[in-house]
């Protein structure tokens, strides 16, 4: 069988639109998910037993169920329960944000925990009030330490966002699948789709390594 990659070029506009949807969805969920994860991470290390319990249940639930099931649930069950129609994009954003929030909260929690008790000793010896300890010493270090892992989380989200094609969102994967079905050229189309994901994700994973090295060099004491 002869491969004909020109079929991909004929559909380049559709693929570009799909890619744009993938990128848009990823960026929105990166911002919302990381913000959510930050506060959930704080809640999980909080002194309040109530906050710890609620945040733990949330995190364990979303880490312990398949993302695909979460997506289906939000797309098909949530509208029934709420009694409101949600747009595809809104449902996708809600689902992936909740998922990303759970994942990144673990990242923030780990980085908060990695700050040694001697940093708090120094804060006390300098007479820093609790608020200043948190905002000027603990949080900046925690965020800095979290950055490399957060970037990894973001790259993962970019790749896993392909799952939304299963619920009919017109992302890169969805468009690719449609073209491949309609043209009966799965090898050409799906290979190109895979390459597009790779060309974007690969430099990002390399960047993570570089950022990690720089962050570690800076925080090494």
């Amino acid at each position, binding site marked *: 069988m002869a491969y004909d990659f020109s079929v991909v070029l004929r559909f380049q506009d559709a693929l570009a639109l799909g890619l744009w949807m993938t990128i848009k969805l990823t960026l929105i969920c990166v911002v919302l998910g990381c913000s959510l994860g930050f506060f959930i991470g704080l809640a999980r290390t909080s002194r309040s037993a109530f906050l710890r319990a609620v945040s733990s249940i949330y995190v364990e639930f979303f880490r312990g169920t398949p993302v695909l099931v979460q997506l289906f649930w939000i797309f098909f069950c949530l509208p029934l329960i709420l009694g409101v129609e949600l747009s595809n994009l809104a449902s996708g954003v809600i689902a992936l944000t909740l998922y990303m929030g759970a994942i990144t909260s673990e990242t923030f929690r780990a980085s908060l925990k990695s700050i040694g008790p*001697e*940093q708090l*000793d*120094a804060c*006390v*010896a*300098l*007479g*820093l*009030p609790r608020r*200043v300890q948190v905002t*000027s*010493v603990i949080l*900046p*270090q925690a965020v*800095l330490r979290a950055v490399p892992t957060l970037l990894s989380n973001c790259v993962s989200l970019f790749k896993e966002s392909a799952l939304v094609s299963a619920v009919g969102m017109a992302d890169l994967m969805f468009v690719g699948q449609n073209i491949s079905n309609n043209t009966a050229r799965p090898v050409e189309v799906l290979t190109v789709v895979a390459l597009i994901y790779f060309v974007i994700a690969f430099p990002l994973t390399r960047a993570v390594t570089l950022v990690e090295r720089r962050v570690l*060099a*800076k*925080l*090494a*004491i």
Partner: protein
Amino acid sequence: MTMSFSAPLVKIKSLHKSYGPHIQVLKGLDIEMKPGERVVVIGPSGGGKSTLLRVMMGLEKIDSGSISFAGKPYISSEAADKKTVIDTEVRRSIGMVFQHYTLFPHLNVIQNLILAPCKVRGENKASATKRAQALLERFGLGAKASAYPAQLSGGQKQRVAIARALMLDPKLMLFDEVTSALDPELVAEVEQVILQLAAQDMPMMIVTHDMWFAKNIASRVIFCAGGVVVEDGPPEQVLGSPKEERTRDFIERVFHIRH
């Protein structure tokens, strides 16, 4: 005996401290420190030296006893619920430097120095920076103002840590084994800085294993073992011809004297 009317700077009264139910670290410590004194605390590991300093800084809970600073009690234990009460206003007169530098790694040297003055005392950034720069110059660190802690040697980090504590104009400095983590060739530069402070009559309490340093800086040496003060006196006595058998054993061991 001459009567002294100067009130003690620090008064530690029957201080007890334990970690858990079985490990008693301080078993009724009584120490009075006069203004201008430089007290070096020596003794075997686990004898409670570092714990004493940490308690004085308010970093540890106590079981019972009290500590006053300049006549004001600032650390005490409530008999009823065994809660340690700390007067943070009084505590701010005390500065402390630790064995492991504890600089803030995400802030550069100047930022490390001005954080507390700006955030605690509300000093404006320009004046704090000016004071910080002057202090760094004095400690031979003028060129390191914008360096990050990770870019400094151990000795430089420790000098920055001392400068950071001095930014708050402490009336008493606590040094907890500040040269123990340093490479031998870096010890002198840190000790020089502390000697410089001593020359300006800064009251200090120092825990150290460096007997040369102890001899050179102390106006008084306390030998602490098993959670109590075993011997207390001028350095010539405690380090030179100790009266107590336990002190003698310890001093002989650390000075490697062979008979």
